[in-house]
């Protein structure tokens, strides 16, 4: 016990000695929590619009007004021809072209049918898809408006209609930040815990101090514990800071219990640190450890469902996510913060993470040899 105490003191001293790293550890959560939810927004607004109006009628003007007043579109350009508008897209000045044909108003009323061309810059498929969807719904609204002007009421009502009402649970204002913030919290805990722990033992190796530790009468478990505990504490401190910041800036706090959150993060950190130590034991240099850590971190985060839903992935990728610890923390955080899920709702997540903890730490202790 006393040995462990001294070892811990050494580790903490080493962490606190490097002011730059310490500052980073605290700056990281703050910067991430402030920047990421604002940057990582898929709420599409300000789609830049280039209009080619060949009709110049009252209807075409009303329709263009509907676009600009919808809040989704920003009219940046009136082009005379489609090709001119295309130039604007090429220069990245416009995202969407709306071309209204000559005789738009006349055809709509006399022929009862007309056609509008929408062309979107689809390099980003998602933005293009949303832009076209918004444009379509505006055109549909306008169309209904025209229809009610020209058709007598009773005829319209004679058609049976299914009324679709929709409601959005757990996040009725559809606040994208509420979705991102819990994920960012999970990301923070993971980044700090994993990177720091994976670099730790290997640093002693590289600098050569590991030999001194090896020849001392320290037991294996004491050594591993002394490496685990400081980062465990650090991880939870970062999480606490994260919770405080997300409350102050976004007013977001768990709908469920804080304690379940900390309990889960605590167990998760043990598992994650085990994986970090394992990386550290395998690597020969800090540079190598960083590479390996970065490699896993990237895959874990990409396949963790932070930005792109796991359910949409193909089956093979979904199976991969089952062995991704980050996935479980992100899910648990979201369930806890948004849905107020209880300990019982999260029981599978707990079990899986405990399993990870046993496997990773077991492997770490097994593989750490007190010889070089």
């Amino acid at each position: 016990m006393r040995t462990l105490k001294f070892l811990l003191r050494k580790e903490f001293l080493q962490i606190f000695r490097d002011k730059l790293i310490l500052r980073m550890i605290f700056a990281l959560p703050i910067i991430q929590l402030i920047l990421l939810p604002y940057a990582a927004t898929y709420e599409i607004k300000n789609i830049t619009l280039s209009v080619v109006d060949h009709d110049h009628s009252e209807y075409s003007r009303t329709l263009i007004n509907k676009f600009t007043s919808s809040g989704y579109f920003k009219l940046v350009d009136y082009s005379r021809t489609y090709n001119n508008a295309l130039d604007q897209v090429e220069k990245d000045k416009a995202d969407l072209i709306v071309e209204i044909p000559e005789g738009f108003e006349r055809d709509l009323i006399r022929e009862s049918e007309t056609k509008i061309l929408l062309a979107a810059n689809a390099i980003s498929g998602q933005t293009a898809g949303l832009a076209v969807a918004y444009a379509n719904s505006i055109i549909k609204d306008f169309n209904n408006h025209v229809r009610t002007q020209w058709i007598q009421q009773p005829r319209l009502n004679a058609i049976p209609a299914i009324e679709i009402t929709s409601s959005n649970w757990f996040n009725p204002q559809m606040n994208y930040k509420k979705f991102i913030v819990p994920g960012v919290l999970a990301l923070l805990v993971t980044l700090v815990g994993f990177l720091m722990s994976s670099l730790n033992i290997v640093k002693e190796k590289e600098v050569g101090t590991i030999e001194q530790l090896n020849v001392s009468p320290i037991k294996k478990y004491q050594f591993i514990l002394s490496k685990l505990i400081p980062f465990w504490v650090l991880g939870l401190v970062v999480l606490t800071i994260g919770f405080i910041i997300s409350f102050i800036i976004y007013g977001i706090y768990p709908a469920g219990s804080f304690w379940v959150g900390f309990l889960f993060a605590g167990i998760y950190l043990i598992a994650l640190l085990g994986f970090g130590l394992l990386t550290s034991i395998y690597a020969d240099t800090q540079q190598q450890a960083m590479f390996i850590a970065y490699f896993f971190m990237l895959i874990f985060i990409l396949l963790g469902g932070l930005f792109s839903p796991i359910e949409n992935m193909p089956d093979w990728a979904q199976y991969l996510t089952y062995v991704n610890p980050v996935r479980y923390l992100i899910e648990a955080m979201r369930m806890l913060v948004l849905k107020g899920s209880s300990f019982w709702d999260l029981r599978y997540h707990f079990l899986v993470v405990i399993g990870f903890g046993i496997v990773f730490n077991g492997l770490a202790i097994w593989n750490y040899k007190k010889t070089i």
Partner: protein
Amino acid sequence: MKQLITFIQKEFHHILRDTRSMLVLIGLPIVQLLIFGFAITTEVRNANIAILDNSKDEITQNIITKIESSQYFNIDRTIKSNEQIEKAFKSGKIKLAIVFQANFQNELSHSNKAQLQIIADATDPNQATTLTNYLSSIVVDYQNEMNQQNKLPYAIKTEMRMLYNPQLKGAYTSVPGVMGMILLLISAMMTSIAIVREKELGTMEILLVSPIKPWLVVISKVIPYFIISLINVATILILSVFVLGLPIEGSLFLLIGSTIIYIFCALSLGILISTITETQQAAMLISLLGLMLPVVMLSGYAFPIANMPTILQVLSNLVPAKWYIIIVKSVMIKGIGIEQIWKELLILLTMTGTFLLISIKRFKIRL
């Protein structure tokens, strides 16, 4: 010159000796591209939903069959009450629930109106919107089939054109993004760590007292990573053309030329980081916090810049990757020539110059 070659050889030995790092260096872009190309899609498929049918008549059954036959949804038949729906939402079992009102068919035929409620798990707002839209369009389709005899008059039809990327492939955004990210990672992060490593281990002193000029020491550190970056550019381009089916519309020469400018920019950034840090861990944290995060967040690769608050839009101009990604998109996908991208190239060159100037000012020959 001979000295320089010897030094470069030494660096190569350092890198090649370490097979694990080499594997990651070469493998990382491949894995990343494959994940982006094949695993991450915004397409909805097999979303779990529950249906609460309080009417159980012909029409509701027809609608349910329609929903089932679309490949988007997977109906969980064990859920039969409101309480169960709430529970299933909380445990994350379902993403959406549909509730038909009682006497659905009767209401529809007698009062011309029947209600169908869609409840979505809006934890992920975009996913919720997409699912709700898919479902409503299935119901609307069904209704249109039902009312086929009454074709709606005064219809505005829309024709849609998806420019540059008609199949809406994700690779069109991910390839430029991955290039911007990987090159920065290898050139800036790895260079800075390699230089700081010599400082940390104390071997920098030996290098500095050797007869070779200090700036040649730095150059010899940088060249191996420059070559690895070029290898990565080649793998990324080959993979994206032959596996992901992304065309190179513009001039390959221009693409590679601007890539080399970007690599120079990243390398000079790496040198700059190495002059302000003393330990490898610090260099890594700075690279991670100062480079990777902004690249992911502010380069316009993962999230459209136009939607961000003004401050972030202004800040994004300081991220070299933003300009590089614009260049890659223009040359590779749009097929634009140099007359449209010279401004971006100039910005990258200016940034490179600035980074180098600051590093030269800060570079200490004595430790």
